[in-house]
């Protein structure tokens, strides 16, 4: 019954949405601000990659919000996954099972490679396609690959926390410095430099580095959290354990009420 009604309404929704979109002309949408940005972005920001200038310049606060969301997500995830006691510190279990030498060694082989690519993409974010997010994801992959290859290997959470904290902070601090210079929040600092060169587009590269590190740290933290639920490996064991913690928590709140 529910499915039928769902399908009926969904088809109705689809029809209506199509009716709406049919009134659009493909590629004919008015792009008022788009045009304007294309016109003046280059001399305003001096970044070859106009998307970057939008991401970090015109809509910089969006980017701030978005890394904040990543941070929030990882915090919430660790809040959800951690049991009552703080036990997210790194630990490596004895007798973890080894999934074969090839996998392990190739993983450790890939690590530097991925790191370099990621950093490159981050650093050239304002010149070429790509940027902080893309690079950050690759960095995360670099960190996560060994974890997949050798499950149960601990991740240095406190280190990650340090990185993500400082990266995010630096992004904001750069914005605030602008404030203290009497400019607006997140206004680009320094001169434009010579367009197309590595050291150009003012403080955008710095921002992108911050973003990249942040994203990398966040993602790897997230993945690690998911991979090692409530900070310790074995499933059923953890089930009983976390369950018992649920137990206690429930009891606690019962007694409270």
């Amino acid at each position, binding site marked *: 019954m529910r499915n039928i009604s769902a399908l009926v309404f969904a088809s109705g929704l689809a029809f209506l949405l199509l009716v709406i979109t049919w009134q659009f002309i493909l590629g004919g*949408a008015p792009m008022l601000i788009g045009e304007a940005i294309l016109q003046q972005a280059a001399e305003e920001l001096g970044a070859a990659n106009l998307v970057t200038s939008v991401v970090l310049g015109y809509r910089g606060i969006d980017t701030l919000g978005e890394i904040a969301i990543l941070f*929030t997500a990882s915090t919430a995830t660790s809040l959800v996954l951690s049991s009552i006691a703080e036990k997210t510190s790194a630990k490596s279990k004895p007798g973890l099972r080894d999934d074969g030498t090839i996998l392990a060694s190739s993983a450790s082989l890939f690590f530097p490679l991925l790191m370099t690519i990621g950093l490159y993409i981050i650093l050239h974010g304002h010149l070429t396609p790509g940027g902080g997010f893309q690079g950050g994801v690759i960095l995360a992959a670099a960190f996560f690959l060994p974890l997949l290859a050798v499950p149960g290997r601990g991740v240095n959470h406190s280190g990650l926390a340090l990185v993500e*904290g400082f990266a995010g*902070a630096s992004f904001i601090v750069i914005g605030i410095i602008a404030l203290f210079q009497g400019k607006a929040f997140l206004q680009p600092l320094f001169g434009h430099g010579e367009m197309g060169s590595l050291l150009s587009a003012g403080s955008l590269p710095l921002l992108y580095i911050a973003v990249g590190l942040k994203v990398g740290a966040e993602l790897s933290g997230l993945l690690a959290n998911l991979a090692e639920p409530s900070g310790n490996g074995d499933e059923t064991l953890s089930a009983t354990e976390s369950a018992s913690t649920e137990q206690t928590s429930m009891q606690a709140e019962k007694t409270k009420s």
Partner: protein
Amino acid sequence: MNNIAFNVALPLLTAFLLPIISSGSKSATRFVGPFVLLAMLWFALAYFNVLQHPVAIALGGFLPPLGISFHLDNLSLLMAALIPLMMLLLWPYNNREGFREESLLLLLAGAASGLALSGDLFNIYVFYELLSVASFGLAAANRTAAAFAATFRYVIISGLGTVLALTGIALIYTQTGTLNLAHIGLLASQLNNPVGLSAFALIVIGIGVKAEIFPVNGWVPEVYSTASPRISALLAGLISKLAVLVIIRLLVVAYQGSQALTLLLVLGMLGIIWGELSAWHSKDLKRMFSFSSIGQLGMVLVAFSIPGDAGMAAGIAMMLHHLVVKPGMFLLTENWNGPIKKLKGAATSSPLAAFLFMLFALSMIGVPPLPGFWAKLLLVTGLVEANAPLYIIALVVLLTATVIEAHYLMSTALKIFSRGKKKHFKKLLQTPFNLTIATIFGAVLLAALFTLTPLGNKLNQIATESSDRSLYIKTTLSLKLPPQVKQQVSKVQ
């Protein structure tokens, strides 16, 4: 004026650094948060006092509509001031375990401030998402199985909501080619067609998930009855209002046609009916209050659906009233969360709490001269003035709902005040912490009662200002427009 950006930047910064601080010293973790909130409060109030007329600031120095702009008027600054205030009141001072809840709260504060201030549609969306994710984390913070399940359902429904909202934004962008609210307002003529209106509908329903709009509020009773009362108070009191605020901004700036208002009115009426009826049937305080808050937000929506200043004034009044009353009530549910029939003798075990409950209940029913009555009076006069059949129906619904409200609230109150057995008293004792906070809310209510006249004047001023569309547009676009946009704008018109 640019410094208002601190209200967004500071809490985020602190939240980012909180893990590091906490690894340093636990005590600092507990106290840095309140300091930041105080700072935010100070900024907001400072601007609230000096502000003569609405002001827009361009973030990153990029002029709107290209860049993102914050819109500072009495309403947004009022909200920006209320956010840290509520946070301070509902801050987990007695939280011993870790920093995560604190940092989530700070993120929530930052996001909320951004939401209140921002004048850019997509930016609003981003902050709204930040708000949602933070509230997910807080809703699950109780770490009970039920809390996890409820939060999951919450995540799913509001995820769908954001999808709809994003679709709406995309439609608007495709239609107008801009994201800045003021600019959209300038081009409102292009949105006064099925496409634009359906974009509005999608956004309303999407954002409505947080605003507890019927029928996308299925999460409300579950989350509020599994999360800790402080969080419920925060979500019901503050967050829902911010979501409403977004809808109102959009309504005022771009959608002044009657159709959009009708949508809001109908949704609001359904919300009232469903909320109050369900509350009447519910057997424990937490769910009763969550349902009744659904009903109250329905009333807020109905109020805002009245065209002109009258509606705006009524809506803001209802909003602020609910903002004060509902958290106070939720705080009382912590130790009174049993079934209602077990509440006998609660008054004798903690009389102050019982008094507060009575106070809040009376104000919610709208008993003169409590503030709730004046809000309701504004609503009633507004509805009658609007003088359309649908509005008259809304009036009838409102009044009937009030009767139902009175019934379930009073039956609870009489249970609380009736004599009970000695042995239950210890169970019904309120924690001094919650009691203090609730008392503060009650005191605010009474203070409002004694300063009604000035409050009313201020309210009217805010209402007239924030219901003025052209003012909003002028404020933002009066910043020097880049030439291309100028001529495009002129071309568009």
